[in-house]
């Protein structure tokens, strides 16, 4: 590995919030997805409205699409409430604001860790980290919108703690 300082401390203790570009990307992406769904849904009725001109039809159709896009942007940008932290006991992940939740996984219970990069995420230097546990409900804990470097660090730190625990056995 090209890691310059292998014995460096795990990423600074304290809460990490997602970078602004990650929030924007997720908001934009969700807005796009929902807008496309909306467009697909109104396409049929739009063709059926024979009595109106094209511009009138487009105007009518744009209202639900725009509303859906707004909703999507709102849903996607809820990522800004996400905070994560890695300490000696494991990973903390806080999400949401109104419906707030905090998941904690000790490093000793991590089965394996995945890093996912979508094409868009790669373009912006972002990554999604999935921490797999043996639990039934909290089987895959997903940390979205990490900077690529953070994701690598987090994965290495969790994997190293796994190795350490294995040695102690």
């Amino acid at each position, binding site marked *: 590995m090209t890691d310059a300082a292998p014995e460096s401390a795990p990423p600074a203790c304290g809460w990490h919030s997602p970078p602004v570009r990650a929030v924007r990307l997720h908001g934009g992406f969700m807005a796009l997805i929902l807008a496309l769904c909306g467009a697909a849904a109104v396409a049929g009725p739009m063709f059926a409205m024979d009595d109106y001109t094209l511009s009138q039809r487009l105007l009518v159709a744009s209202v639900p699409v725009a509303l859906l896009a707004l909703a999507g942007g709102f849903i996607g940008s809820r990522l800004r409430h996400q905070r994560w932290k890695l300490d000696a006991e494991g990973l903390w992940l806080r999400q949401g604001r109104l419906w707030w939740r905090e998941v*904690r996984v000790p490093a000793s219970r991590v089965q394996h860790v995945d890093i996912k990069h979508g094409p868009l995420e790669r373009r912006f230097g972002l990554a999604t980290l999935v921490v797999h546990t043996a639990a039934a409900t909290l089987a895959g804990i997903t940390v979205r919108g990490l900077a690529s470097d953070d994701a690598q660090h987090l994965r290495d730190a969790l994997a190293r703690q796994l190795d350490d625990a294995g040695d102690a056995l």
Partner: protein
Amino acid sequence: MEQAPLLTALPQDGREHRLHPLSWLFVLIAQLKQFIVPLLVLLVAGRGDRNDLWGLIAAAVLVATSLAQYFTYRYRLGADAIVIRSGWLHRSLREIPYARIHNVDLQQSLLHRLVGVAEVRLESAGGAKPEAQMRVLTMAQAQALEALVRGHGASPGDARGDSSTAAPLLTLPPAELVRLGLVSNRGLILVAAAFGALAQAGGDLLETLFEHWGRWLFGWLTEQIGGHAHDSPLVLTLAAISLALTVLFLLRLLSIVLAFLHFYDFSLREDDGRIQVERGLLARSRASAKRRRIQSWTLREGILQRWLGRRSLQVETAGGPRGQQPGQQVLKELAPIATPSACDALLARLLPQAHWPALDWQPLHPRAWLKLALPGLLLIALLVLPACWRFGPPGLLVLLLAPLQLWRARRLADACGWADNGAVVAWRAGWLDKRWSLAEIDKLQAVRLSQSPLQRRFGMADLLLDTAGASPFGAPLQLRQLPLEAAQALSARLLSRMARKRLRW
């Protein structure tokens, strides 16, 4: 002492042996089960056509392969390993050291029992498939093999093969089985399935059934009372009530029959760190699991059970490879029905670190009852308007439900509680149907603390403690409406303990 029957049943003379002479029959049956759908399609769809020849050919091929399997399968019992040679074109030789065999699984269906044989599976720690599947050995051979493996097991100091002589922790005499049938709804599920099937296939069979009932009853009543019994509301009510009672009675009877079928000669044993359940009237089934494989324990007590003075004890095991094989029994019901003191004794023996029932139960948030009552209260508020519009002022009577709902929520909140004694964490819930769930803290995998807006207003939080055995539809340890500080402190305590101890499967 066990040496003599063991030697005669299963000589360790270093020679190769074949399976039971009737093995091919059971191999054939197992294969037929796999091919049952295509075979049925062939037989039914091709009826009257010339295609029935294909069905015959397929059956002949299956018989030939099962015979070939019987003639090519040999096993030899060495000093410390069993060697299995099988296959004709594709040969395989497999040597399994006794010490590696974690479990010897004996399975008997009705046919197996008639012939006096058993299907034996030798299982090691990992892997989705058993190390070896011996279809079939005589019962004496199977038990001798089990004893042999146990004797060579990881703990050689133990007495060998006395699992069947050790006194069971729990057995169910017939009176208990009747009680089990009375409290369980197995019959209901079966009847619901039957109704579904009838509605799908039978068409008007169901309708005819109802019609006959009505005609028979009405005819009888008309004779008794005379006149127009059909119009009298009294007779109609009588008919409905009697039908309901008959159905209820038949359902309970069916439940009792099913309880006998499933749980006849039930025995729960603990042996060498393994917990084993054996049960069944026609098809015997035997499920076992290592004690440390058990992820969570649940004690239940419904209303009917409480009236009869009984409880039930269930466990969740980790969904390893064992759980996913068809035909493989998963250990779930440790005690389908038992007196509270028997359940307590079982828990005290199998989960000693819980010190059950002496747990220090902590209450919920003082205003948890309000949170529990709110959804029902909202529903009542929503119902009042339509009720008034439909029935006029008497519709306001719906409001009488509100105090009832408050009272129920109060009882419910009082019944819930949580406990943590440093080794085991527990949650009790339910007012009419009571439930106590316990899990070792070392078996927890992850913890989730959550808060809805309403809960934040009250200063309470939910805590989900997830284990590997929980079903995805509702983990047993879902602690609700805890005071926020208590939930946070518990989460921190559990986490520091989980982080210290590495998970042991």
